[in-house]
């Protein structure tokens, strides 16, 4: 378990040292969200109606940005070999990487979603539901993302292939996440879609690292 946390700690330290890369996906999230009022008009009611969808789609795209470096950097400089020889099963190496992606990208996105929601005139009463959806949602994106990133490792132009692999997987996350916020907006119970997200997360925490770990092994061969 020590090795697991040392992988996470090392990744967090690297992200701090490469602060610009880390901030880039957050700024991307803010800027793409800010484009919507320019494109669809600044009418407060329209924005409030669209806000959950905009935030979810932009968060999804922003979470994709750092994925090609998630394993790519380690693959190119030989660190991946050392990770696979660390004594930890490949699946746990992948889980550590997904966790560090979530801590560096998912969690900050969750926090930045609050000012972005205000900017888009989201009803403040809906904010807790939106965040309650984004919490498992961003974690799922990290897990799917890590799986996709491991699969395209070593492929030529893997960075282009990656969104094509990950975005279809992320569709259910988007559907349930927005459904929760919409249900709350219509004064209906939002528990069901949130529970679906939680169930999806419970299934993906063991399954995605297994797939990603197998992909890492085959990339190293």
């Amino acid at each position, binding site marked *: 378990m020590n090795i697991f946390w040392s992988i996470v700690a*090392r990744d967090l330290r690297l992200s701090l040292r490469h602060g610009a890369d880390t901030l880039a996906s957050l700024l991307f999230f803010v800027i793409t969200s800010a484009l919507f009022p320019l494109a669809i008009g600044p009418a407060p009611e329209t924005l409030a109606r669209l806000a959950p969808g905009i935030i979810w789609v932009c968060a999804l795209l922003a979470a994709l940005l750092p994925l090609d470096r998630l394993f790519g950097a380690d693959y190119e400089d030989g660190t991946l070999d*050392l990770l696979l020889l660390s*004594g930890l099963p490949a699946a746990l190496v992948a889980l550590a990487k997904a966790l560090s992606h979530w801590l560096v990208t998912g969690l900050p996105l969750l926090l930045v979603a609050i000012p972005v929601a205000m900017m888009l005139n989201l009803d403040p009463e809906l904010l807790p539901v939106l965040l309650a959806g984004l919490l498992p949602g961003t974690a799922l994106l990290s897990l799917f993302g890590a799986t996709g990133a491991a699969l395209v490792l070593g492929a030529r132009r893997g960075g282009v292939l990656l969104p094509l692999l990950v975005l279809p997987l992320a569709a259910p996350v988007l559907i349930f996440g927005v459904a929760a916020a919409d249900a709350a907006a219509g004064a209906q119970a939002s528990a069901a879609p949130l529970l679906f997200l939680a169930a999806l997360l419970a299934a993906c925490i063991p399954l995605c690292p297994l797939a990603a770990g197998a992909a890492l092994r085959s990339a190293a061969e």
Partner: protein
Amino acid sequence: MLEVHKIAAIRGEQQIFGPLSFAVPKSGAVLLVGPNGSGKSTLLRILAGLGRIAEGVVNWDGQNALADRASHGARVCYVGHLDAVKPALTARENLGDGADVGLAAMALSHLADQPARFFSAGQKRRLALARLACSVAPIWLLDEPTLGLDVASVARFGDMLATHRATGGIVLAATHLPLPLPDAVELRLA
């Protein structure tokens, strides 16, 4: 004791080497020699549990070593062509646990808190080799370890190898350069 029974490796449709059998006793050292493309690196990666083995068995102390590749990884310290040095981390952070021992072994202690991006190619190589001194793994797999090293560093590396073998560790190294490995068995790959 590392025993290799009739292993072979295939790349694409072509057999690179094999079937190959040898054994390395405690404190033993094997020097892999052969022309480019003869499969030296492939053999080292297979023994590390990283490469794909086409046929054959690798035993460690009589047990199939590659059955559980994760725990075999803990028995192995592998230094490949790539240094696996992160430029943004300092030398000490790059090595992780037991860094000071490794840094001292390769005479890098005075650079311990320098980010590795300021290191020359030779210094990065020394940092990669310093990882060996930090590890407690009994099997050292080295792929062209002394490429780009100065004479003094090769001598220090020789001391590291001697210490490792004195404590019962084994060394397998692929090289084209003379290595400070006295009484190593030569294994020629065609």
